[in-house]
Structure formats: C-alpha cells, structure tokens
C-alpha cells in the first residue's frame, strides 16, 4: 500500500484523534527554510508512519496504556498564547528563556550579555543566524526512531540551544521554562553542546494549566572533560500528558549530573538514554517522583557504558499517595570493552496509600567481566517505629509524616546545589503531603 493509500484508509495514521502526521506535513511545508531540516523531519515522519505509536505489547511500553492519549485532541498552537506569569515562579535569574506552547516568548524571557564562546538562544534564532551550531541536532538515528522523539522531531517549531565553546565556564545558571496553555500540543526541542572542558548549568521548569500535551526532547553532547548539571522540575498540570525524551552522550572524562523532580501529569513519562562514550566519563542521574491520586509517573532510563573506566549512579525515589503509580525502569548496559566500569542503580519507593502501586525494573546487561555493578530496589511504607518515636516526642502525626517523607526525599534534595530550589522543593513536598 502506498503512503497515500494508507492515510486515506485511516486519516489519522497513528490511530489518534489528533492528526499528528498530517499536521507534521503541513508544518514541514510552512516552516521557514532554516528550520525545515527536511531530511531529519521526513525521516521522523517515516518512522512514525512505519511503526505507529507504541502499544503495551512492546516491553518498554508495557507500563502505559496509550488509549486515553489516542482519544485526545490537541490543538496545534501556531503562536504562543498568553499564560499566567505565576507559572514562572522560582525562575528569577538574569538568563531566562521561556517557551510557551513550543514557541519562544521574548517578553517573558531575559537575555544577558554572555561570555565569548557561549550561545544561549532560541533554536529558531540559532537556525537562522548560526546554523553551524545545530550540527548535532538529531544525529542519533536509533534514538530518533523512538516514537515520541520522532513526534517531536517531526513537529518542533522552536526550542533552546546552549552551546559553550571549549574551556569556557558559564557561571550564570541558564533558566529554561517550557510552559503550556490549555488544549495545546507543544514539542519544544533543547540542544545542549558543551565542548571540551566547558562548564554549564541548566535549570528547567515544565509547567502549564489544564489539559494539554507536552512532548519535550533534550539532546545533550558533552566534550572531553566537560561538566554539566541539569535540574528539571516537571511540574506539569495534573491533567496534562507528558512524554519527554532525553538523550545524552559523554566524551572522555565528561561529567553529567541530571536531576529530575517529577510532580505533574496525568501521565508523566520520561525516556532517557545516556551513553558513556569516552573513558572516565561520569554520570549521575537522580530522580524524585511524587505521585498523587490518578497519576502515572513513568521513568525509563538506559545508561550505556561503551568504553572502559566509566562510572554511573542512578538513584530514583518515588513517594506515592492515592491511587497512583510510579514506574522505574532502569537499565545499565555494560559493553564488552567497558572494563573497570563502576555502575550503580537504586530505586526506592515509599507507599503512603493502599491503592498506590510501585513498579521497579532495575535491569543489568553486562558483557564485560571486570566490572563493579550493583542495583537495588525497595518498596515499603513509612516505618511505624520511626513514626511512633516522633509522636512520642510530641510531634503531630501529619508533621511527623512530613518529616519522614522529607528525610526520604532528602538525598535528592541534598544533591541540588541550588539552595533556593532546595527550599522551594521542601515546601512543595509539605504542601503535596497536605493536599
């Protein structure tokens, strides 16, 4: 069957109420030349058409029922709609890029003079003015085949590019906000390239109001010895759908520390792949999921040790209340050449309610013999004796619980080097517990 015939048989070739492919094709024709990326986008559309959206028979999608998502209609936002400025709470730095519905909004953003060799700019601007900085965009074909990455590739209209030249250290925290308005679909694209010895830090906020679809994709390329820290606060609306992807590759001696705190989304899913491609690279992935009634927070991580002497740490925590679900699916893959790898993976879950459900799949695939790999998973409720002890000291039940949950989340908070965010998150956890 030809592509046309296929589409005629099912106008929404992906079996969705929203015509993703038709929209992507219309977009491809309408975009200004520098943003077209014809080959890349055509490839993504081809992948989508060929594979469709995933279903539960596929192992990594076993945890999510996409039927609800398929039935949803989301508007393509041709231009950003006005949003409540309160959504930007917590971002008060001098360097702030705000995207609403996938479009850059200058009026909400703040740009400051940057040191030589540093570019922090909207993707559309970079594409028009310095396209050579986008060479790395979408250059991992296997990963682009992943359905929601492909959906982003076929549909993104703007994003943020961070490019730091060799040896340059950027002291200013780069703040990025991805905001969504009701009923829209947004496909923001982030590209972070740090050349050898560069150093940068990003704080990213994902927020919105009402029901919408957020489909951000982040690509991170770290050169030799580069150091990168990235904190994401996934604070989407509780009726939003989020399918996020992160792809990172580390050259020799590079260090990446990726922190992700997840609170929002009816379904909040992230697919993260990280490759330690150079010797002595070091990756730390920390996650904290706070899932409330009706939510599914779903994290799928793959850390691939391709060469020797790599070190990786994954620590994910989940706190669950109401009828919620938290899924941690982490894979450490140690290739045959990756001798002397030191990889660890931990998933801990705290269940606060009867109907809460935790799933953990900490997986190891090891093809090298001289490695140190360990993983662990625990699930349990609050320790009765600890609670009793606190109460015997005159601390009320709610407060005692909050204290223990905060302690449980503590390691994640300790990992944040931004005191402001640490405090904000502590307050958020308390509020979350009371809600």
């Amino acid at each position, binding site marked *: 069957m030809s592509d046309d015939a296929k589409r005629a048989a099912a106008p929404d070739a992906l079996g969705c109420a929203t015509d993703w492919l038709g929209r992507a094709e219309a977009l491809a024709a309408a975009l200004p030349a520098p943003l077209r990326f014809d080959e890349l986008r055509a490839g993504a559309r081809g992948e989508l058409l060929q594979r469709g959206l995933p279903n539960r028979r596929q192992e990594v999608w076993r945890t999510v029922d996409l039927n609800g998502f398929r039935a949803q209609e989301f508007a393509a936002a041709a231009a950003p709609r006005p949003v409540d400025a309160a959504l930007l709470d917590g971002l008060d730095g001098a360097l702030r890029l705000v995207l609403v519905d996938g479009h850059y909004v200058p009026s909400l953003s703040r740009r400051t003079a940057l040191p030589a060799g540093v570019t922090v700019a909207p993707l559309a601007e970079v594409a028009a003015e310095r396209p050579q900085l986008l060479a790395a965009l979408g250059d991992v074909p296997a990963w682009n085949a992943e359905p929601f990455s492909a959906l982003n590739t076929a549909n993104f209209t703007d994003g943020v590019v961070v490019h730091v030249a060799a040896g340059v250290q950027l002291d200013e925290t780069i703040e990025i906000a991805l905001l969504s308005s009701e009923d829209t679909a947004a496909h923001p694209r982030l590209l972070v390239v740090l050349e050898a010895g560069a150093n940068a830090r990003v704080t990213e906020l994902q927020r919105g109001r009402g029901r919408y679809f957020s489909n951000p994709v982040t690509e991170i390329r770290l050169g030799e010895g580069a150091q990168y820290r990235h904190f994401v606060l996934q604070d989407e609306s509780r009726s939003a759908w989020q399918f996020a992807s992160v792809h990172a590759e580390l050259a020799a001696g590079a260090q990446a520390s990726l922190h992700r705190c997840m609170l929002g989304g009816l379904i909040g899913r992230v697919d993260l792949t990280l490759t330690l491609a150079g010797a002595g690279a070091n990756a730390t992935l920390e996650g904290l999921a706070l899932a409330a009634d009706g939510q599914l927070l779903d994290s799928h991580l793959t850390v691939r040790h391709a060469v020797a002497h790599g070190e990786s740490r994954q620590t994910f925590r989940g706190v669950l209340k109401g009828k919620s679900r938290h899924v941690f699916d982490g894979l450490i893959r140690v290739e045959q050449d990756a001798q002397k790898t030191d990889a660890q993976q931990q998933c801990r879950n705290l269940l606060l309610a009867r109907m809460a459900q935790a799933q953990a799949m900490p997986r190891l*695939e090891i093809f090298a*013999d001289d490695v140190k790999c*360990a993983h*662990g998973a625990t*699930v*349990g409720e609050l320790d009765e004796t600890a609670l009793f002890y606190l109460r015997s000291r005159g601390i009320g039940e709610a407060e005692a619980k909050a204290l223990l949950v905060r302690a449980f989340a503590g390691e994640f908070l300790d990992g944040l080097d931004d005191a402001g965010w640490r405090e904000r998150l502590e307050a958020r956890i308390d509020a979350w517990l009371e809600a």
Partner: protein
Amino acid sequence: MSAETESLERLADGGYAYGFVTDVEQDTVPPGLNEDVVRLISAKKEEPQWLLDWRLEAFRAWQQMPVPDWANVHYPPIDYQAISYYAAPKKSIGEGPASLEDIDPEIKKTYDRLGIPLVEQEFLAGVAVDAVFDSVSVATSYRGKLAEQGIIFCSFSEAVREHPELVRQYLGTVVPTRDNYYAALNSAVFSDGSFVYIPKGVRCPMELSTYFRINAKNTGQFERTLIVADAGAYVSYLEGCTAPMRDENQLHAAVVELVAMDDATIKYSTVQNWYPGDKDGKGGIYNFVTKRGLCKGARSKISWTQVETGSAITWKYPSCVLRGDDSVGEFYSVALTRDCMQADTGTKMIHMGKNTRSTIVSKGISAGRSQNAYRGLVRILPGADGARNYSQCDSLLMGDQCGAHTFPYVEVQNPSAQVEHEATTSKVSDDQIFYLQTRGISAEDAVSLIVNGFCKEVFKELPMEFAVEAQKLLELKLEGSVG
C-alpha cells in the same frame, strides 16, 4: 589474555562426561504435529475422553499463540513439524514391567552409569526413583513402602488410569493450558511424567526422585509432573537430569505443577545437566520449562532449589503463587553457563494472601562465550497485607567474552508490603586466587573453592546427597582444567 583468564577458561572447559547413547529399540511416532498426532498419543496411552479433550483444547490454543521472543536467548526458529512427539522403549509397551528385573538391561546399564541407585543401591540410598527413560516410566521403586502411608508416587499415565479423579481435579489448575506457548504445547502432547499425592498429615519418609533422560534422536520430551501435598503433608522431591551427546538440538518443554494445601510443604530440587552442545554451540538441548507451585492453603510452603549446569538454552522460571495467608515461597538457584550456552532463568513470586513471604537467592556464573540472565518478578497484589520479599541476585563472570544480565520486575500494590531487591556482579578476583595459592591450594582448587563459596547459600538448601552431587557436578563442569 592474562594467565588467570586462560586458566579460568580451561577450568570452565570440563567435557560432558555423561554423553552416551543407549541402544534400545524405540516405538516412535513419525515427526509432525496435528490433531491426529495428539489423538494418537492419547490413544496409545489409553486415556479417557476428558483428557483427550483437554489435550485438543490445548493444541488448538497453541496453534493460535505466537512464539515468545522476550527472553534474552537466540536460536533459529524451531520446526515443530520436524519433531517426533512420542517415543517409548518398545519392550515396555503392553503390560509394562512386572518388576525391576523385567526392565531392559540396556536401560539399567544406562542408569548404572549415571550412578542412579535403582537396584542394589536402592536400599542403601533410601531413595525411591521413578526413572523416566524418554517418555514412558520404566521402573518405579519403593512403591509398596510409600503405599502403606497412602502416598501415591507413580508415572503420570498410571495416575490417569488409577487415580483419574485426583488427576482431573488438579491437572492444569496451576499451569493452565493457555498459560504460555510451551505449556500449551506440553499440555497437547505430554507423554509421561510423575504424579505424587501425599495424603493429609503425612510426612513422606524419603526423598522422592525422578531421573529424566532424553534418549531417542529427534524426540521432543514433554514431561508432566503433578505433585499434590494435602493438608499438613510434607514432601521433598528431587529431579535430576543428564542426557547423552547429540548433534541436533532437542526440545524439552516440561510442565511441573505443585499444589500445597493448608500447612503443607513441598520442596522441589533440581539438578539439570543436559547436554549443552559442543564448544561452538552446536547441538544441545533446548530447555523450555514451565514450573509453578500454588500455595493454596494457609501456612503452606513451596521451595524451589535448582542447579542448572546444562542445556544449550534454558528458559525456566519456577514460580510460586502465594494464595494462602501466611504462605511461604522460596527460590534458590545456581545457573552455570559456559561455551555458547544461554540461560534465561529466574522466578515469579505472586503474593496474594496476607503475610505471605518469599525469598529469592539466585547465583549466576558465566564463562566462555555464554549468556546468563536472571529474570524475576515479585508482584504484591492489593490483598497481600504485610507481604515480605527479599531477593538477591549475584553474578560471577569468568572470562571477557560472556554476559551476565539481571532483569528483575518488582510490582507492589500494597503499602504494607516490604520488598527488597539486591544484585551484584563480580568476577573471581586475582587477589582471591593469589591468596589461596599462597596457602598451597592449586589454582584449579582455588577457583572451585571460590565458586562453591559463591553458591553455598543455594547448595545448603539441597538435600544432602543432592548437595554433594551438585557440588561435584559444578567441579566437573569447571574442570578440565586449571593449573
């Protein structure tokens, strides 16, 4: 390659000592599988109509099922039409052996070479053996002694003839015909196996044992084992396997069902040493087995212990469904792979009852170019208040060509449950070997010592005679050898 790796590899090279073929005339159905073959098997075994219907239902389900491809094993597609689904030693067709003296002397010799205590040794060893030679049980010992206590220990076909009500009551209740591809296939064409029933309050006075042998060329082996322990009963069952050397891959798709009623305990121990194929992965047994126990009653307990050292491919997940309150499930496993062997093995613990507990200890050893995977599921259902699980999966790598993988699935739906999973991966370190060598222990013995230490937690769960055998088997497998 370091000298140590070399010696480890040689150590992992131990040949297959049990490779010989017994020359016995076989009554074999021509290769191929259709409803007529299912009917023929059923007719040859003079089965009642309900069992034939059950087989046919399974066969029809099997035809609709896709071949599972999620396991971490790779092999060319199996041509199910090229397999013969029934083989029985000719001389036992008809009335069956009246006594041990009547069995084919060739078969007896085979068992003797395997060291199975069937005749003279049976008294000394105190083991009742239900020996399965290919598909028909050819000898059963100690029957009388067990019968005195009301214990039924016989071949599956005999059980169908003599205790149809028991078989019908429990068959397929733990592993339904549609459970999975290989279980459905087994349900359709199973040839024979063992049946055990321990009546209320009886503690089985001896270890029950079955030795499986795959013998006829191109014959898939489809064993069916059903063990029922009634309230308060106790039984320890041993299953040991060796198979002669072969060039063609042989399929083995067994099903084992255990049912434990209130306060009953079933201990099921396996030593599996089927032919793993040659050094280049040619030949060897495909071992696709479904084993599951149902802790049906309160305070019941099912314990699986397995030592897997053979088969080209092992696909096996002995599981426990903990339905009764306070029931206990255990899984202790050692899986050794070498050369081109592939193992994807583990367990499932399904907690349904209150205060159910489960323990998983899995030790994987990979050598050569082999791939060894642990795959396990711990599921706590909403009703399982106070459930508790502890899992530990350790892998030992010998050589830089092999792989060790761990795929645990933890699913918890009850906050009062406590679930812990731990896993480590390591290698036999130079330091450990060096230390033992400085104490005058040869490198070969040192590795054996280290490996045995690594597996100790599992070996101590095996019945004594079996533990000795398992330890020897492991040494033999790792022999050949180090210096």
